[in-house]
């Protein structure tokens, strides 16, 4: 299996030459979704005058992230904090409202569909719900052949088939599954097929949007290990979206914690789990149930996550933060690098008020 695995990847070596530069760089990324409908629905009478009113959901508000080659960056955060939006914007499924995305130094968020094609091959996505991510009217063989044919139109029929066989074997599915349809398989099997589809074009970067949350617990570990093996064998870089902290500890090399569309802390996994700095991260970590805890010391956060329609001023976390002061209510904190390799966006940590 080893020689078939290494042969069809001619471009992988040259793209890894430019070291030091992050593979993916996100700068000041923002994404707003309009709530107000079309132009006519935005017109309102106010005080006898016709005014145009627009409301937006601020899904992500200025996210900065860097992903180095070969690492597995996990993005965690509660529901609605914008982690999936980051993934979909990176993959070009959504257009960012502001900010830029660079892939291997090249800006990709404003490229045309045609100019994006080489990056489509290098970046692939794995989706959350394996029941929806396979086209129900296509056989597995068709599903897997489609991306290969698209990106390698010059390949012979036999070569395409060989590539499909290779990728099916590498995710542990039998070659005779090819003639079947997606609905004939269980969730774990389907997710393997979806992973095979992503790996079929030999990508170097994979965005995985909660790829195991929809799976049975007994299958989750299998699929997670499959993703880790693929990372090792194929030199993959991951942007891994999840809300499962156990998965993060097992899988991630670095972790980014998001809250209400902002990154509050980025740190190497071990550092983050050992010494969380940001008050939100600390609360999050304290919520992990542990066997040895007889009297768990949860940090209780007051109140609810504010609505992303009307963002709070200053730090998005200030209303629930036990350490917030006047500066937190006015000034938006930036990510500041620390000596232990982490970056924290918190005035309190910067000033040394919080240890």
């Amino acid at each position, binding site marked *: 299996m080893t020689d078939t695995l290494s042969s069809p990847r001619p471009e992988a070596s040259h793209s890894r030459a430019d070291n030091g530069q992050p593979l993916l760089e996100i700068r000041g990324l923002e994404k707003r979704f309009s709530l107000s409908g*079309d132009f006519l629905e935005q017109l309102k009478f106010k005080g006898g005058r016709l005014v145009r009113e627009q409301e937006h959901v601020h899904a992500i508000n200025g996210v900065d992230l860097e992903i180095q080659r070969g690492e597995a960056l996990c993005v965690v955060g509660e529901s609605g904090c914008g982690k999936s939006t980051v993934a*979909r914007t990176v*993959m*070009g*499924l959504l257009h960012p409202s502001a900010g830029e995305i660079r892939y291997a130094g090249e800006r990709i968020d404003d490229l045309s*569909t045609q100019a*994006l*094609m080489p990056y*489509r*091959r290098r*970046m*692939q*996505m794995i*989706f*959350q*719900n394996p029941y*929806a*991510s*396979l*086209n*129900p*009217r*296509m056989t597995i063989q068709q599903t897997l052949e*489609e*991306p290969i044919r*698209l*990106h390698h139109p010059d390949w012979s029929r036999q070569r395409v088939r060989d590539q499909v066989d290779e990728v099916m*074997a590498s995710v*542990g*599915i*039998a*070659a*005779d*599954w090819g*003639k*079947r349809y997606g609905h*004939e*398989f269980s969730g774990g*099997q389907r997710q393997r097929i*979806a992973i095979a*589809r992503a790996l079929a074009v030999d990508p170097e970067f994979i965005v995985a949007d909660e790829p195991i949350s929809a799976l049975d617990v007994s299958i989750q*570990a*299998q*699929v997670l*290990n*499959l993703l880790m*093996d693929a990372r090792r064998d194929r030199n993959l870089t991951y942007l891994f979206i999840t809300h499962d902290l156990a998965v993060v500890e097992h899988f991630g090399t670095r972790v980014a914690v998001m809250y209400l569309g902002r990154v509050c802390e980025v740190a190497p996994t071990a550092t983050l789990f050992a010494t969380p700095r940001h008050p939100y991260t600390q609360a999050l970590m304290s919520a992990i149930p542990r066997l040895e805890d007889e009297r768990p010391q949860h940090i209780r956060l007051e109140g609810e996550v504010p609505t992303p329609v009307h963002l709070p001023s200053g730090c998005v976390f200030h209303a629930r933060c036990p350490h917030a002061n006047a500066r937190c209510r006015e000034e938006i904190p930036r990510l500041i690098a620390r000596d232990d390799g982490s970056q924290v966006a918190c005035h309190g940590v910067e000033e040394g008020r919080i240890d």
Partner: protein
Amino acid sequence: MTTQTSPQQAPPLPSRWERLRDSYLLYSFKRDPIAQLSLLVFVVFVACAVLAPWLAPMNPYDLAQIDILASELPPFWIDGSDPAYVMGTDAQGRDLLSTILYGARVSLIIGFGAVALQALLGVVFGLLAGYLGGRIDAFLMRLADIQLSFSTLMVAIVVGALVKAIFGSATFSTYAVPLLVLIIGLAEWPQYARTVRASVLAEKGKEYVDAARTMGLPSRRIMFRHILPNTLSPIFVISTVQVANAIISEAALSFLGLGMPETHPSLGSLIKSGFDYIQSGSWWITLIPGAVLVVLVLVINLLGDWLRDVLNPRLYKG
């Protein structure tokens, strides 16, 4: 290393015939006598229409075979009938059975042709509107609204009358079939466009479409290769209803004198030609083609009903 397990074994793949035999479609068909009867009648109709040149005792289009002296003969069960004309004859002396067979053929051609045109326009516009959204969606859907605000018959009457006035009755008669297909097809495409658009909107949000987009597939391929096959069941269902509707529209137009000419009658124009004689006792010229039309439309509608029940997952999966 729990992942690199040996490839999992799956049960043997059923053949195409086995899949059909085990399908819910066939299962429900076998338990629905109305559907069986409707399909039987429909198949008989189509077979008769297709084989009309061989089945019919005479060719009603051939003037040499028509005997004007044998006009208005009653069907066989009434005194004064001629055994050569089982269903009697019409006012021009054409054998009614032959004329009905040929007429059913014309009606079915127009019905299916118009529906094919509606489906083509409606599917393309519906896919474009649903998938691309935005201004294209707004434009196409407003166009559909405008189109629907004119009734089919009104559009058909205006277009038919215009063509007749501009090119003359002779030209209209020569191109009556393609013209009727065009008129009825153009008047009813919004039915398809709306249905397809609704299904596309539902499918578009599913992750397999996102997967196809992240792959870099062109929109055309995503629309026709990925989304369209998943919107086929509602298209099938409205198609059956629309065939029946198109046949009725054609019959109505012919009855108004804007459809098929008397020399190449459809069921509708046969009904019309006999209508003048209904008072003089020759009721069969109108009533027999009328009954045929009703039965034809009824079985198509019954089949459509059955198909809608079978393909509606809410009715059998719950």
